């Protein structure tokens, strides 16, 4: 998803000019911000299985066309092209109320031969939860059921700890290897 949006310096000159115009567009409407925030939650990763089922992929041309449309309708396209949370991570929402949510964790580690997940939820057991390599050969994913709460976690890539680069880091780095934080909301 993140790579589906074209980098600005890769855009044709005419479209680059359009994005410049969009930058000065007026602030978005209340309806628009609601939609954006909803989309941010649904695209979050680690993410609940429910939201993971609804994953969108935007072609660069479609994204630009959408931006132009928004400019016409009220100027909110600026935010889409320049600031939108494209592949927002590390928040899991929308799980079953009062129960567990299936939370998806993913990491891009193209050269790795094994990736596991360790954290508060498994007592930091080194055996961890094994991630599976996805079809693209680069991304490793796993889904685990978690009850609502806040969890510190880390990946173990070929035996070495690795923080989730796309998630908020934990404040308490007591052991020289910072953790990431996932928030699982029950509502």
């Amino acid at each position: 998803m993140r790579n589906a949006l074209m980098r600005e310096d890769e855009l044709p000159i005419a479209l680059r000019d359009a994005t410049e115009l969009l930058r000065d567009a007026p602030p978005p409407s209340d309806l628009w911000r609601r939609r954006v925030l909803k989309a941010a939650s649904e695209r979050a990763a680690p993410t609940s299985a429910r939201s993971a089922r609804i994953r969108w992929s935007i072609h660069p041309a479609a994204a630009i066309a959408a931006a132009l449309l928004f400019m016409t309708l009220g100027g909110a396209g600026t935010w889409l092209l320049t600031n939108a949370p494209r592949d927002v991570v590390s928040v899991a929402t929308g799980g079953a109320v009062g129960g567990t949510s299936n939370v998806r964790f993913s990491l891009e580690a193209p050269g790795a031969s094994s990736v596991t997940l360790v954290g508060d939820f498994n007592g930091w057991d080194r055996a961890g939860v094994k991630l599976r390599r996805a079809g693209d050969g680069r991304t490793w994913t796993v889904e685990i059921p978690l009850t609502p709460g806040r969890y510190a976690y880390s990946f173990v890539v070929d035996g070495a700890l690795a923080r989730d680069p796309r998630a908020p880091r934990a404040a308490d780095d007591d052991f020289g290897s910072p953790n990431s934080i996932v928030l699982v909301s029950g509502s």
Partner: protein
Amino acid sequence: MKHHLAVLALLLTSTRIAAQAPAADFPAQLSVDTRQVLTRIADSARAAKLPVEPLVSKAAEGVLKGADDARIIAAVRTLARQLGEARAIMPAGTGTAALTAAASALRAGVTAETLRSLVEAGQGSDAADFGVALVTLADLAANGVPPRTAGDAVSELLRRGTPGRDLAALRSAIAQDIGDGIAPARALSARLRILMPATPTPEVRRP
């Protein structure tokens, strides 16, 4: 009579055993001495009505990361102290996750005063929304947003009745921005303009 006393004694003993919380299960990889020290810390925490699970988890994390016993003890002791500080600030009945987030916020440089302001702003809020607000504050501060600025922003959002889902989205979006190289305070400002378009964003203040 003797029989009755024996039964009473047995009942009292059973009740007392049942009332005792289970011993904290610190990792077996730690030395016996270290586990004894940690157990004493956990017992003190339990006596102060603090959750013990985060302490056990912290010790396990230290073991996984190859920390020596002294470092693990120090980390567990620090966490117990911060949980105690958080407990003194947070409303009664605050759950373990929220309490841990509050302790984490303190660790990230959020002051007790800022936490109290958040508690005040969250009065009347849904407990789940308040919990998300707390985690949001802790994570923003931990990721470089000036703690007081983060506190002012999250408190204001709570006062406005911003639902937890929006706060969670804000937290994620800012983390993403920071990951993309945007300065933390600027990331917060930009995102707040989306959430609170009609309001000037809080000034960046010294923590």
